[in-house]
């Protein structure tokens, strides 16, 4: 069964090969960005990006950009 999560306020269907936060970041093309991840309202430390993604997880990702 496909996992459905809430990603930055929108419903997002996780492809089967994405199992962890790190894999999600890479799938989204954010693997090499400076970013902050929140999972179910808790900030996730970088060494916990191997945390598995579960159905209905609420995930927020904010990446830093240069412009302005």
């Amino acid at each position, binding site marked *: 069964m496909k996992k459905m999560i809430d*990603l*930055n*306020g*929108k419903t997002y269907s996780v492809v089967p090969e994405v199992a962890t936060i790190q894999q999600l970041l890479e799938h989204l093309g954010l693997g*090499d*960005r*400076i970013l*902050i991840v*929140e999972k179910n*309202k*808790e*900030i996730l430390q970088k060494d916990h990006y191997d945390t598995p993604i579960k159905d209905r997880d609420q995930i*927020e*990702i*904010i*990446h*830093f*950009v*240069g*412009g*302005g």
Partner: protein
Amino acid sequence: MTGKYSRQELFAPIGPVGQQRIREAKVFVLGAGALGSSGAEMLVRAGVGELTIVDRDILEWTNLHRQQLYTEQDVIDQLPKAIAAESRLRAINSDVKVRGIVADVTPENVLDLFEGHQFILDGTDNIETRLLANDAALQLGIPFFMGACVGSYGLTFPIGVKEGSPCLHCLLEALPPQSLTCDTVGVISPIVVTTAARQTAELLKCITGAQMEPRLESVDLWTGERAAMDVHSMKKSSCPSCSDTPTYPYLSANEVIRTAVLCGRDTVQLTWPRNRQVELLPFAESIRGIVSNLKQNPYLVSCEYNAHRLVLFCDGRMLVHGTKDIMVARKIVAGLLG
């Protein structure tokens, strides 16, 4: 009520007392590009007492779609942004003491520039200057309203507005060698205005003494994605910028890009600090679509960009040919690397 600020005073959280505080506020706007233009215009219309706006740059045609203070004539006249901004802001509201300064904000001058102001609005276009401003604002005890945007995406975070809240250095840990910029991935004006509006709303709240709950927020106006995080758990007790014994590393020159004009060669050399050297391959990939004559080998990447030849070496140096002006070279690098 028919006064200039009557509709703002009618807004109950501001009221006459808040308006008086706005009237007495001295605000520094760091950068007169897109965010700086938009934020400065809102603050001047709101009737702040004094506003200083600093920028190193000259106006270009590519600025006009999003930098709302400027006109075609300003570009034709090749005006520095700080000068054109000063003139436009004074015309918008003569109550405000507006000062435009043409300068590159550096570790050497940032404290002198910020001194005497009570609030700093971020209108810079790169993370290095933001971290410099973060250190300077923390040292002087001045709140700093961070904002950044590219494409249709923007983020904001107010720093120094609540005890125990993290600073930008806590959130970033290290300066990324490369980040997205408006020169590499473009930008649309709605995200500029949205980002500046969020920064300015927080700044007005802070001026008027509202309860501050700093949150790291982002929005993408194209995709509709948004996020808002309570990041207080990211405050680092050992942070070199905001701990009890801060060293303010970005105020010392060894954390920032060093520059030198190569005598007689019409070339500026930029040298990155060892801990954040730019890697050749990702750099080449990120600029592939916007430069010409891109060449790379294991030792260097070279290309042409805006009539300048750029050469990045694997030891962390870049040569910008075709100029003796450090500001021109820094601007090119900020545009490409953020």
